């Protein structure tokens, strides 16, 4: 059974201007040990996909229209709120995109991590490494040690001393590492990391990617890595899903998709990254901008920006077809081809 299976997920978002169809039929299957990069232009629905899995989209304004999200067979969209609470911070770890919402400036960093560790330890005593009958103070002590370990693991120097600092005493990069430590402390089966390294220096980023990679090797968790950094995806992800305006328009193994991009949007996205040999002004990019989701164009939502557009593109949303092993594309022009791995 797949670790995570999203089937035909449709999410509406209401505003006073009407309801926008912000997720428009998402299909995604994540197995243990896979690191999925989720990429796509701002506003395409990456964060809402992640938030839907942990069911943190407020309803209203959100509305799940149809579809299902299963964690090892359990449909999360019909789970009770207490059940979701026991999944969050334990089986599902999350690193949110907006760091200001994550750490409370009034409490010491250590207290905040210890709280998460105690919550996770309450659901699974083995996380703290103390017996189920351990006293409150023993559990607290174990939680504190675990917190220090995790801080050291994510690269906070002198973690034992820094743990009693307040968030403002940490740099932005260090705060981000604290959030990563918090998401990992419950030893999640599924980690949803929304732009976890965007605010970090490349040297720290490399360290975090190494940490993530080793964790996946060691514990076989599944990861959804939401990022706009295609370099990060190329380095660490096993798979990638390219989103456009609420749809996954191309997905598959990272090598397949990056070496043989089929969808014109993916091609444009990859052509937007400056490479070493490029002269200034040679960067292609993608002309135009994303459609208004309140009045999306008919058929393929990328059609208005597509250089290869055809009359049939606007008739209906093109279904995803397999063009190679581990490679699906939702484009009328997609043609099966030999795999890049061959």
């Amino acid at each position: 059974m797949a670790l995570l299976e999203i089937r035909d997920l449709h999410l509406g978002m209401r505003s006073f201007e009407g309801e926008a169809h912000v997720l428009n039929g998402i299909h995604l299957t994540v197995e243990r040990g896979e690191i999925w990069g989720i990429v796509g232009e701002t506003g395409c629905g990456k964060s809402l996909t992640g938030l839907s899995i942990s069911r943190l989209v407020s309803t209203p304004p959100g509305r799940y229209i149809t579809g299902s999200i299963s964690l090892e067979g359990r449909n999360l969209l019909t789970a009770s709120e207490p059940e979701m609470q026991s999944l969050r911070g334990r089986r599902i770890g999350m690193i949110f995109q907006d760091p200001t919402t994550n750490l409370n400036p009034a409490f010491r960093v250590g207290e905040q991590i210890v709280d998460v560790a105690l919550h996770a330890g309450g659901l699974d005593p083995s996380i703290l490494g103390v017996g189920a009958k351990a006293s409150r103070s023993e559990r607290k002590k174990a939680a504190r040690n675990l917190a220090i370990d995790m801080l050291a693991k994510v690269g906070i120097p002198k973690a034992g001393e820094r743990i009693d600092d307040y968030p403002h005493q940490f740099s932005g990069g260090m705060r981000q590492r604290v959030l990563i430590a918090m998401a990992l402390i419950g030893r999640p089966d599924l980690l949803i990391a929304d732009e976890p390294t965007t605010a970090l220096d490349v040297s720290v980023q490399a360290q975090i990617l190494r940490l993530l990679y080793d964790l996946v090797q060691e514990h076989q968790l599944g990861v959804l890595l939401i990022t706009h950094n295609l370099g990060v995806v190329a380095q660490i992800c096993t798979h990638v899903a390219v989103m456009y305006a609420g749809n996954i328009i191309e997905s598959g193994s990272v090598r397949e998709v990056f070496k043989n991009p089929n969808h014109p949007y993916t091609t444009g996205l990859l052509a937007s990254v400056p490479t070493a040999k490029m002269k200034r002004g040679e960067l292609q990019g993608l002309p135009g901008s994303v459609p208004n989701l309140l009045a999306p164009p008919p058929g393929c939502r990328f059609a208005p920006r597509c250089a290869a557009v055809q009359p049939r593109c606007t008739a209906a949303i093109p279904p995803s077809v397999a063009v190679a092993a581990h490679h699906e594309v939702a484009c009328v022009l997609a043609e099966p081809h030999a795999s890049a791995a061959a």
Partner: protein
Amino acid sequence: MILRIENVTKDFKVSHGPLARATHFTALKDVSLSVGKGESFGLVGESGSGKTTLTRLILQLDRVSSGRILFDGTDLASLSARDLRHLRSRIQIVFQDPYASLNPRMTVHDIISEPMEIHQDTLGLNARQRTDRVVELLELVGLGGQHLFRFPHEFSGGQRQRIGIARALAVRPEFLILDEPTSALDVSVQAQVLNLLHELQAKLGLTYFFISHDLGVIRYVCDRVALIYRGEIVEQGETERIFEAPESDYARLLLSAMPEPDPDRSPFRPPAASAG
């Protein structure tokens, strides 16, 4: 050289609680660099290395502890308030944080036209012309004129950064400080903005002081680059030279950590082995 930074040091007084004696923290130490007119100069360094502090000194939002900053041959510290205000229209900045840098109570129109009002005496645009220019700027940065009367919270992070760029360009500056201008943008929009910055530079002879964590972007944009580590410049020179033959350990460390968008060059997987 349009900008010369000569042996600049910046100390901050830091106190650890009311009883502790104040100590000094040296955010910049003996920094020297110069930026030629019309070039793109890159500044790369880790978080907390002093990049934003340096931009604040250039903008005269803060004073140097020692050393000098010369813009177009004039020592900034010697300027009268009036001359300083005039100079400010020549140097503009695009800030790092698109969430914090736009006033949430102002419309996009007012945000972008505000600097034109402040520098009304130099620009001489009337209200109508200012609005026309706002529309033109919005289109230039890839947003449409239909966004004129919307508020910042109605935009995504990427869109907000484009508004910030439009605002910085509004007064037709010569020298643009770009403090992580594209780190909040997705690559397709980043490409549009980088190309836009390139076009504008060619057209208007702008000088860029470009701060970024993204070495790929720095390489694409900058003629010369300086690497700053804990307040000190550890290496500077022609961009290509630094990328091809870095001299400092720090440059080598940064280059080895730079993620390339090629699955075959990942340190995490053996080449051409793990497909599928």
